[in-house]
C-alpha cells in the first residue's frame, strides 16, 4: 500500500497557510491525517500538494465556547471546560489512538464514505470506478446506478450532530477574509460537494452560544463495535429546562446521509404541547421519516432508519417525565 507522491507544505502560521493556499489550485489540507492518509493510500482523489496545519498555532484555542479546528479530539473529550455533550460525543469517535491524532476540524470536514468508494485502487478498477472517484472515466454511481449527477456517499462524523444540537457557529477563513455561519449551514449536498468550503478556505474554529452551559443533552451512536467504527447513525439532542419545562429543544442526526440532518424545527414544534413519552415517540418517528439513508455502509438502510427512531428516543429519555 503506497501513497502517491505529493509535496508537503508546512506553513508556520495561519496567514502563511492561507497565502500558500491561494497560490495553489490543487491541494488538500491535512490536520491529524487520520482521514486523509488512509484515503491517499487507497489513491482516493490524491492531490499533488498537501498543506499541513500542524504548526499553525492560531487554530488550537480551547475554551468553553471556542474550539479551534486543530484541537485534538482526545483533548476535547478530556477537557473539563468543554460542554458535556461535546465531550461525550468526542469520546465515542474511533479509537484512543486515532483520537490522539485526529482533530476537530478534520472530523467536521471528514470525507464522505461509501462501500463502493473506500476501497483500494485495484478493487475500484474491478467495478469500473465510481462517480466520486471516477479516474476520468465519467463512471456512474454504483449505489444508485443510472444517475450521473449525484454522489450519495455518507457523512459519518460524530461531532457535527452535537454542534448542531448546541446551535454552534462555524468560522471559516481564506485569503479573501473570514466568514461565519450556523453550523448546519456549513454542509452542502452532495457527497462530493460536502460543504461550502471554497478552494483555499479552511475551518478555523467553532463557537458555542454563551448560554450553552445551561443546555443539557445526549448523544446516541449506532455502530457494531464500541471502538474504531464510524457511526452508522447518530443522534444528538440538546435542551434547556426552565421552571421545570422544556424551554428549547434541538435535535440533529448524522451518519445517514451525505450531510448531517438538523431536526430542530421538528423539535421546536414538539415542545409546545410536550407530553413526555408520547412526544418523544412522535419526534423520533419524525426524525426517522426525515432521513433517507442508502445502502452504502455496513448496516442496511432500513435498519439504520429504524434505529434513528430508537436513538432519538434514547437521547431524549431524560425528558420522558416532563
Amino acid at each position, binding site marked *: *500500500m*503506497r501513497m502517491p507522491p505529493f509535496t508537503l507544505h508546512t506553513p508556520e502560521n495561519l496567514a502563511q497557510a492561507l497565502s500558500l493556499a491561494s497560490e495553489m489550485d490543487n491541494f488538500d489540507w491535512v490536520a491529524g491525517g487520520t482521514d486523509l492518509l488512509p484515503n491517499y493510500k487507497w489513491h482516493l482523489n490524491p492531490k499533488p500538494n498537501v498543506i499541513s496545519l500542524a504548526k499553525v498555532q492560531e487554530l488550537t484555542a480551547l475554551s468553553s465556547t471556542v474550539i479551534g479546528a486543530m484541537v485534538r479530539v482526545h483533548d476535547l473529550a478530556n477537557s473539563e471546560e468543554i460542554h458535556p455533550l461535546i465531550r461525550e460525543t468526542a469520546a465515542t469517535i474511533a479509537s484512543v489512538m486515532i483520537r490522539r491524532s485526529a482533530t476537530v476540524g478534520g472530523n467536521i470536514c471528514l470525507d464522505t464514505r461509501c462501500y463502493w468508494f473506500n476501497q*483500494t485502487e*485495484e478493487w475500484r478498477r*474491478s467495478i469500473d470506478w465510481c462517480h466520486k472517484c471516477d479516474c476520468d472515466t465519467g463512471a456512474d454511481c454504483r449505489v444508485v446506478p443510472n444517475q450521473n449527477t449525484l454522489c450519495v456517499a455518507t457523512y459519518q462524523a460524530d461531532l457535527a450532530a452535537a454542534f448542531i444540537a448546541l446551535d454552534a457557529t462555524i468560522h471559516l477563513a481564506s485569503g479573501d477574509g473570514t466568514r461565519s455561519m450556523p453550523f448546519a449551514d456549513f454542509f452542502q449536498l452532495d457527497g462530493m460537494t460536502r460543504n461550502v468550503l471554497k478552494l483555499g478556505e479552511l475551518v478555523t474554529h467553532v463557537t458555542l452560544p454563551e448560554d450553552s452551559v445551561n443546555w443539557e443533552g445526549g448523544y446516541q451512536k449506532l455502530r457494531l463495535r464500541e*471502538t474504531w467504527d464510524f457511526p452508522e447513525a447518530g443522534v444528538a439532542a440538546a435542551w434547556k429546562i426552565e421552571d421545570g419545562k422544556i424551554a428549547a429543544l434541538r435535535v440533529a442526526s448524522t451518519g445517514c446521509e451525505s450531510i448531517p440532518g438538523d431536526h430542530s424545527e421538528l423539535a421546536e414544534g414538539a415542545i409546545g404541547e410536550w407530553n413526555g413519552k408520547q412526544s418523544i415517540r412522535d419526534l423520533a418517528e419524525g426524525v426517522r421519516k426525515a432521513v433517507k439513508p442508502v445502502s452504502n455502509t455496513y448496516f*442496511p438502510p432500513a*435498519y439504520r432508519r*429504524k*434505529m434513528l427512531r430508537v436513538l432519538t428516543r434514547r437521547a431524549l429519555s431524560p425528558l420522558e417525565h416532563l
Partner: protein
Amino acid sequence: MAKGYRQAPGKGGSKKRTDGKRVAGQQDFGVPGSGGSDPYSKLQDLDYVPESVGGWKKQPRGPHVHDRHVTGMTIGKPVPLVDSNWKITGQAHYGDDIRLPGELIGKILRSPHHYAKILSIDTSAAEAMDGVFAVATGQDSVNKFGVLPVTKDEHAMAQEKVRHVGDLVACVCAIDEATAIEAMNAISVDYEVLPSIHDMEDGLKDSENPIHDRGKYHIGESNVQKRVFQQFGDLEGMKDAPFHHEADWETAGLHHGFTEPHAVVAHWDPSGRLTVWTPQQVPHYLHRGLSAVLDIPMHQINVHRTFVGGGFGGKSDPFPHEMCAAILARKSGRPVRINFDREEVYWINRGRHPSRIQMGVFADDEGRISGIETDALIDGGAFASFGHVTTYYNGVLHTAPYEIGAFNYTGARVWTNKPASGAMRGHGAVNSRCAVEVGIDAVSEQMKVDPMTFRLANLLPPHSRTITGFRVTSTGMRECLAKVREQSGWDEKFRNLPLGKGIGVGCGFFISGSGLPIHWDPENFPHATVHLQCDMDGGVTVHTGAADIGQGSDTAVAQAVSEVLALPLDMIRIRSKESDTAPVDLGSYSSRVTFMNCNAAIKAACELRDKVLKAAWEITGYNPDVLVIGDRRIYYKHDPAIGVSWLEAVHKAQADVGSLIASGAYRTPPMGGIHKGAAAGLAPAYSFSAYVAEVDVDVETGFVKITKAWAAHDCGKALNPLAVKGQIIGSCHMGMGQVLSEEMKYGRNGHLMNPDLLDYKIMSVHEMPDVVPIIVESNDPEGPFGAKEAGEGPLLPILPAVCNAIYDAIGIRIDELPVTPDRLHKRIEKHCRKLGIDDPLELPVPRFEAGPLQQKLVERAKSHAKRDHLRDIQEDRSSYVNGVLFGFDPDKPMSEQKEGWRESVIPTPEDLADPKKRAARAWSHVERRHRGDA
C-alpha cells in the same frame, strides 16, 4: 526453595555440618555444574509427579503409560512459551522481516473480473521498463498443485481462465515497490468475460463453462467439487420420533483475520538450491508444491518457516504467490520478496465456507437422540483447497459426543467465482456443530427437559465407538458439562432471567490430529518424527518439523523432552524452521501437533535418556532400574548422595558411543471403518468441550453482548495450563466474532465489499466477555502424558452457547450467522408481529417447567456417570459401541440385530427425493466416466 538438592525433602534443616561429613537424610549437595541458567539442582517437584509413580499428583482417571517418564520438571506447569521473549522484544522475524542483500520487490497483477477467459497478455511494456528484472505469466507455471493430492486444481498464475476477482494473472519484480507497481500496471491483458456464479445453489446446476474441468471424474457438467453421502443406523425409527427440530441454517463465509499478511522471500543460492522464507503452517506441502511447479527435485529446495503471525488454517495451503516469488527469483537471478496488502489476504482467503445447512435433530419418548439428519451445501469459492475434507467434516464430526440412533448426512461443496474457502480453526465442524447444539436445545424444550440434563443423559462413554466407527478413547464431556453447570449457576439462571438476559449451553467435539497423513500411507511413513542431539555442553537440540504458528508447538515439544530428561527448558533448543534440518512433518493443522510430535519427542527422549542412564550405571555401578533422573543429576534411588551429574553422564556416554543422538516417531494405530470416507474425521483421540454463555440482548436494537462465558475444555492433560487457557480464551474471541459480527460480505454484483479490517468486523476488547477457562483432564491413554488438542475444539461451543442464550433471553431461535444487530432486529420485529405485540419490551420470555422425562433423564445421567467412571479407570473393560443405549449388543454387527439398519454411502433415489434438500441435488449428476463420456 533452598539452593541445591536436599536428600529426603522436608527433613533437612538449615543446619549444615562444617566438617565435610554428611548426615544421612539431611545433606545438601553442591553444584552439579551441568548447565542451565540456575547452577543448582532443584528438588523433584512431587506435586507434578503422578501418584502411580510415587508422586503427589492425584489421578482420578487412573495411571498413564507415560507416568514413569514424568520427572516433575515442566509438564503441567504454567510456563511461558519458549519464543515469547523473541516476540515481546521485537526480535522475532516474521515473513516481512526477512531482508536479503540485493532483493527485488515482486508484485502480482490480479484479475478485475469474476470469471473470464484470458485472450492475450502483453508484458512487453513492463519488461522494457528501467528497473524491472523479470515478468512472469501462466506460461512460466504450467504445472498444477494443490494442498490435497486428490484435488490439485491450482496454478501459480492463471492459465487460460481467471476464476475470481483477485485471481493471479501475472507477476513482476523490480528494483523497488513503486517501479514494480508501475510495471504491473503496464501489463495489458485482454479478457473475454464469462457469466460468473456467485450463489452456491447455482453451482449445483449444469453450466456451459464449469469453473474447473476434472476430466472423466467431473460430476455432470456442474460445479460440484465434492459430494458426500453417509447413512448409518435406524432411519425408520428416526423418522417416527415424537420430538424433532428442523432448521435451515445460513452461515456466512469467514476469514481468519490473522495479524500478519502473507509475505514470502525466495532465493536461488549459488549452488543452485532454492530457499523460500515464508510464514507457513505446513512447510512440507509447500515443499512438495514448489517441487511440482518448478519441476525440480525436493532435495534442491529448502523451505524456511519464519515466525508466523497467526495462521488459524489460513496459511496451511501451498500458495500461488510463493510459487510466483520462486519463479521470479529464478528468472531474475536475484532474491525476490512479495508482501501482501490486507486486501490480497482476503483474495487468497481459504477461510470458513459460507454454508447452507439443513439440520434435523430427532428424539424419542425415552429422551434418547434417535437421529441427526444433515444436508450441508458449502461454498468453496474458486479452488478446491482443503474442501474435500471440509465436505466430510460438516457431517461426520457430529456423530459424537452423543449416542445417536441414526446418522443421515448429505454434503456437497461447489465451486463459485469467489476467493477460495479452505480450512479455518474448527475446520468444517463449527457451522454444523452450532446447528446440532441449537437443535438439541430445541428438542429438549419440546420434551420439557433441562438441556443440560438431556445432554448428560445421552453421552458416549469413554472407550467406545461412534456410529460411523470413530474410536473414542478418553472423554471428559461429562465433567465439562458438570463444571460449567456448577460454576455458571445454571440451575438458578436457566429460563429464570428477565427479558433480554439469557443463558445458554453448547458442546463441542473435535479431532486431535487427523488419522490419515494425506500424502502417504501411514503404514509406510510416520506422522511425525523428532531427532535429538546432545553434545559436550549437555544441552539437547531438538529437530522437528512441527510448525510453531504461535500456538506454542516449540514449547510443547521442548517440554516433552525436558520432562523426560529432567532438564530445565533453557537447555532444550528447538530447531523447527528449515526443511533442510527438520524431519518431514505434516505441519500445523487438524490439531495434530501436540499429540503427534510430543509422542515422537517422548520416544526420542526416552532413547537418549537410556543411553545416558547406561553411562550413569557404568559410573555409579547402579542399574538404571534403581537410578532416578532428577534435575541435571542422576542418583541412586535409595541414597541420593550417590549419583552423577547429567554432564558427567553425557560425557561418559559420548566417550562410549561416539555421538549422542536419538530419534523417535509417531504413527497412529490402525482404526476406523472400511466404508468410503471412513478415514475422514478419524483421529487417535478427540477433544470435548462445553461452554455456558450469558448474554444481554437489546430488544430494541438487536444488539447482543456476551457478558460472561464459562468455558470447560477437555484437553486430556494440560501440558502447559497457561497455553491451554490462552487457547480457550482466544477461541472464545474468535468464535464470538463468527457468531456475532464477522462475515465476508458480497455485494449485489458479487464483489467482496469488506476486504479490510475496518469493515470486516473482528470484535474489539470492548466486546470481549469475561471468560472463565476451565481445564478438564481426561488423561488420554495414547496422548503424550495424557494430552489431547486444545487449539481448535474450544472454538466450537461458544457459537451454540450464544445462540441458545439468545433464545433464553428473547425466545427467538437463531438459524443465521452471524447474528448481527440488523438481522436479529428483523427477527424480533417478525416475532412481535406474529405474537401481535407492538413494543418488543413486552415480549414474553421462555420459561421452564419440567416434564415427566426430566426425572427419568436425571437418573439415567447419574447411572451413566457411574458407568463412565468404571470405564475411565478401566475397571469396566467391556466393549461399547454407539447403539448400546438403544438396546443393541455391542459385540454383534448392528445390521444383524435390527432389520433396516443402514450402513450406506451411496444414496438411493428415495434418499434424494426431497426437492428442498440442497446437497442432495449434487447427487442428481452422473460422473462423466459413468456416463461413458471419457
